[in-house]
């Protein structure tokens, strides 16, 4: 059962990491246009990095 002392914090840490990633993507506006983003990958202009979101267009 000693292994629990390691596993529980580890699972919580990983979960928090996921939550952090979710909050980050949320604030970056990645859920504002899911359909458009899925189409933009077909455009060679965005092969290196996605089209930047203008500051003004963020909430």
């Amino acid at each position, binding site marked *: *059962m000693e292994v*629990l002392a390691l596993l*529980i914090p580890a*699972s*919580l840490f990983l*979960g*928090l990491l*996921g*939550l952090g990633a*979710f*909050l980050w993507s*949320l*604030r970056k506006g990645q*859920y*504002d*246009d*899911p*359909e*458009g983003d899925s*189409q*933009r990958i*077909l*455009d060679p*202009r965005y092969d290196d990095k996605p*089209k930047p*979101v*203008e500051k*003004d*267009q*963020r*909430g």
Partner: protein
Amino acid sequence: MSSVTIRPSACPACDAAPAAEALAGRAAAPDARILVSVPAVHCAGCISTIERDLAKMEGVNSARLNLTLKRLSVDAKAGIAASDVIARLDRLGYEAHELDAGTLSMTETERQGRELLMMVGVSGFAMMNIMLLSVAVWSGAEGATRDLFHLISGLIAVPTVAFAGRPFFRNAWKALRAGRMDMDGPISFAILLTVFISTYETLQSGEHAYFEAVVMLIFFLLVGRYLEFRARAVARSAAQELAALEVPRATRLAEGAESVVSVADLAVGDIVLVRPGGRVPVDGVVTAGQSELDRALLTGETLPVFAGTGTLVSAGEVNLTGPLQVRVTAAGKDSSLHRMADLVANAESAKMRYTTIAERAAAAYAPTIPILSLGAFFVWFWISGGDLRLSLNIAVASLIITCPCALGLAVPAVVTASSGKLFRKGLLIKDGTALERLAEVDTVVFDKTGTLTMGTPAPTNLDEHRAEDLRVALGLAEGSGHPLAQALARALRDRGIRPANIMQLAEVPGYGVEGQWQGQRVRLGRADWVGAEAGVVTAAHLSVGDETSCFSFADQLRPGAEQVVRGLQAQGKEVWLISGDVPAVVRELAQRLGIAHWQAGALPEDKAAKIDALHAEGHKVLMVGDGLNDTAALSTAHVSISPASALDAARAASDMVLLSRDLSPVADAVRLSKTAMKRIRENLWQSGIYNIIFVPIALFGFATPLWAAFVMSVSSITVTLNALRLK
């Protein structure tokens, strides 16, 4: 919430006065953000075509197309207006409509949406982690291990509830203070009591803790809330702000000088100048100038009317050919435009608030939850001979199981699925209850001009003319801004006809265009002016020397008009055509489309009265109209649709906006709304049946946290899947 960044407003004081920002936004901001709705975009090609082209446009800093909302946002330098962007898109082949950049309200909705999504994320995270520990407990963890797991669960659950449960607590508190009881009351009560008892049980090394159930309840309910919010936000951001916020201004002539003033500042007796292409801002009498007026939006007449000295004009008419000086007889509150607005206001206040099926279900359900668990508590308290802990545990179990997890998803899931479907077809739902009301409709009333027809005439007898005449006609027509001339020019150019070289081309306001061609005088215009016999049909007359010929015109049908009428009739709906136009034209159209019931020459009041009469007979009416003369009827009707080309007043008064040119989605919408209502009812029954099965289990004291978690997830998933079945 500190993690949400709020877009700084262009002017901080405007935060307090949104209307002021809306007015100031366009004029004052050095860099404007233009928003247009582009309903036809659908693929990666559209994105790159539009964005690339606009990037090349002078004065545009950047452009971004949001495919989900079908909305283009352009960051442009001052001097670029939405109309420039719309013209540019038009050349690319995309129809676009201006959105009012009421940026403040939009960032507000975006912020709310993000906050809700964040709560969904946090509760989802908490739910999964607690579930991980709970599975261990359910599999048989005992003693110190179980207590430890419960403790960790509690440490995750309590902050989560405090963070993600706020929307429910807030609403419940609001309702409580107003002395009402809605669904959020029992939900909040259940959440708080369960957290409290579970914490107590954990500290007492008890067997059951309902932490995962609480968090799961919050998660599913929040998903429902978010869907509901999204459906409303999309509609709000696109339809209400579709307003071409026309600041009412007029050009006043005083002592020979022109000055632009607000319409509110005009007084009776002032002389205002109305330029060709401009809208008449007041009611008045023409004192100088000759022109033609387009009254289509006010009366539904397709044909422009001649205006000369002494003609009475009404606010809202469009001046077509020559400048007019108008003496004001009524402005502001007294104008016919304002009377129309009053008519709308009256109709709206007379309309009863619609109680949705979700509200009715919640009203029936809300009181049963606390009553059941309270009953369970007292009965078990009596049976067990005063075992407070046992009775409380059973009360909590029945509380959490009866909590309407699936009920919270039942309606929003269906509404989201169906409004998404309709949006892709080009129909935007502005009002959350519109879908439900649409399902009840049995009579559909159409307006003629601009709704069933395009409102733009097209020549019908081009083949009867000599090629030479056609060339002369094109040469003349290109020199005029009159709608008939423009329609003629467009049709002739489409046929590949080259214009004749007309010398001394001049437009005679109110009459037509004239010029010299091969030494002859040529004229295109009104019959009496050209020297031809006036006929009954809409026509423009051409004279070459002494010879005259006549181009007749007919209003074009809107694409999909025939299908929509046939589709609605096939569904057993009664279709009416009510127009302000003359009987001959209305009868002809009604016969062509196979509409049995029609009424012509209807004033705005008549339209609204007819709908009232239909309602009085027990019908539920869907009104489809676009003009100012339809606004009263649109707001009187049970539910209403207006095309995106309609005046903003008409769009504001209607519940749905048709973004596509094609009218056929209307019939689909009526059909889809019926299916959606069926799904909603099925969903409500489903979630009810789960309760009928599991409430007794909880009441008899057999329920465990495992049961609660199982019931909740299964019912929520079946309800969602049922909604997705919508075709």
